[in-house]
């Protein structure tokens, strides 16, 4: 949280809506640990990370949706190692990410 907090406070100060994504579960080799966070603003800014860059694109979209709908969602990423490139999780392993609007 400490790494995304300054950005969140800046965005709030200028009136942006915000969503936060958190790694809640990992299996196998995951690039970031449980508790890692990424924050996204309604104006399209982003801070922090939930992987080594493999799933940030999808999580960014999910955050924008959460801002639009006001709904929280649990996302699941990951497949076996040999298929991993197809969904962008090059590291193998699985990651569950909880996406929620900040309210």
């Amino acid at each position, binding site marked *: 949280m400490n790494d995304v*907090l300054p950005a969140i406070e800046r965005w709030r100060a200028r009136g942006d809506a915000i969503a936060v994504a958190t790694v*809640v579960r990992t299996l196998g080799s995951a690039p970031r*640990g449980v*508790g890692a966070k990424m924050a996204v603003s309604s104006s399209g800014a982003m801070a922090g990370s939930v992987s080594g860059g493999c799933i940030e694109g999808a999580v960014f979209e999910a955050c924008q949706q959460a801002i639009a709908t006001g709904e*929280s*969602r*649990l996302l699941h990423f990951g497949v076996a190692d040999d298929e991993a490139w197809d969904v962008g999780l090059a590291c193998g392993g699985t990651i*569950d990410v*909880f996406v929620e609007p900040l309210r």
Partner: protein
Amino acid sequence: MVIHDALRRALDAEQPVAVATVLAGATPIGGKLLIDAAGVTTGSLAAGAATAQIVADALALLQRGANEVRRYEGGLEVFIETYPAPATLLVVGAVHIAIPLVAFARTLQFRTVVIDARGAFATPERFAHADELVHAWPDEALAGRLTANSHVVVLTHDPKLDDPALLVALPSAARYVGALGSPRTHARRLERLRAAGVSEAHLARLHAPIGLRIGGQSPEEIAVSIIAEIIAVRNGRTGAAPS
């Protein structure tokens, strides 16, 4: 924003807290409860009877600084994340190495304290990036403020300053104690500390010569080796490459 603001205040005040978030099995999904170290809560989870168990689990996880999904009766799934009080790096000796060391430590979310009685060294100009600058003798500055979250790095190269710091730090609860100096300097230091009555068990705690062996020469490189050694100790590793 109630929970977010309460969390932000706790982090600002460096108070340990946990946050429980409903992932499934209760309405609303995303409902949050903030739990402080005394078990006092803010917010609610609509978790009914499970709430007491969630609070107990949160306090246990907070002790370990762990984040976990926990399952409860009725398909309730709760993510518990914890924010222990931040680790502190206390640098004794406002020398050149201390400048990049404080910068690296801050990037790694340590609270940083620089201690030096010598005003010419511990200037706000050199250490604008430190959380705290203490103009005092090291033993006075360290006494009473070392916990299991403290990491003490002794860099003055001067026994008059290093030794009093180590006499306080070695028997303390500090997680890490390291001191700069060549193997020869260190051998002489061990003799002095023994003569001053420090036990062998406490001497064995001292990381000296300080830092992982990465061949660092510049102050910045030595600072990297010191902070890397502290990370290794926090993770229960030696810092050696996997064999």
